């Protein structure tokens, strides 16, 4: 068995009102970061997982993300796997 570190990033989908992102963008711009655009605020979730292969780990992460970590109606997710054992 192998162990992977999983970094999941969850973001509001395009078209879903992201009030937090708007507020952060507004404040950044007012603070002089006028070049900043398209701010989205989401969540970052890190865990480790044991699996037979990288693809098996990926299948498990997809399932966990669809089931709980992201709400597919309003959020999308991406993840990175890194083998640690």
């Amino acid at each position, binding site marked *: 068995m192998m162990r992977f570190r999983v970094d999941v990033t969850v973001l509001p989908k395009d*078209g*879903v*009102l992201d*009030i*937090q992102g708007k*507020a952060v963008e507004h404040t950044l711009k007012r603070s002089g970061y006028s070049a900043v655009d398209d701010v989205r605020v989401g*969540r970052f979730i890190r865990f480790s997982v044991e699996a037979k292969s990288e693809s098996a780990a990926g299948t498990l992460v997809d399932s966990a993300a669809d089931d*709980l*970590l992201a*709400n597919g*109606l*309003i959020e999308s997710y991406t993840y990175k796997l890194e083998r640690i054992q």
Partner: protein
Amino acid sequence: MKTAVVVFPGSNCDADVARAIADSDLGPVEMVWHDEGDFKSAGGPDLVVLPGGFAHGDYLRSGALAAKSRIMKAVKSHADGGGLVLGICNGFQVLTEARLLPGALLPNKNLRFICAPCHVRVERSDTPFTKAFKEGQVVQFPIAHHEGLYFLPPDELAALESRGQVVFRYSAPAKFGEPADAGERYSPNGSLNGIAGVINKRGNVLGLMPHPERSTLKNLIRGTDGRVFWQSLGEYFGVWGDK
């Protein structure tokens, strides 16, 4: 009529709902801890209530962790069998996360927790939850939430509306003799189309952000419009006919 009120860690309107139902003479109320596998009352409850609060601290997303509670399997099979399920505020969020109701509740447009009285128009009086109201009637229920902006993608929102699944809509106060205006501009939270409460296609699962149980007891806060909500359920189950 038997009612079960589910108690999650962080629920804080469970006792209020139980009190409102008791005060409305609707029969026995069973409190069920979220980690139970089933309801205790023989034959099961007629109505299951998911109360307001901050179940599991609202961690991850409001209602997301509660939707995975053990008791939710029993709630789902109750709903699948046609039993009535009511989600108020956080309970509504749990029902959307459990996919028992369509949509999602996003943070309020002003990014603030809003605790205020508000007006809602009753869009349908042909549901078990609203049959004692008049269609188009404006009632005052308080709201108290941070995530109450009802969201669905545009095509699904249009389909929801065309199927008549919107039961409560934020509105202007009623004016005597005139139909009340309702819609998004009256949403205190930015809710799309002013949606405050929706029902499933089958008509047995209702979720709403406003709190009818907080406008039930006399001399508590302004108004007792919530009494009519419980009266609807009493009429539906013929509670007072038995006396």
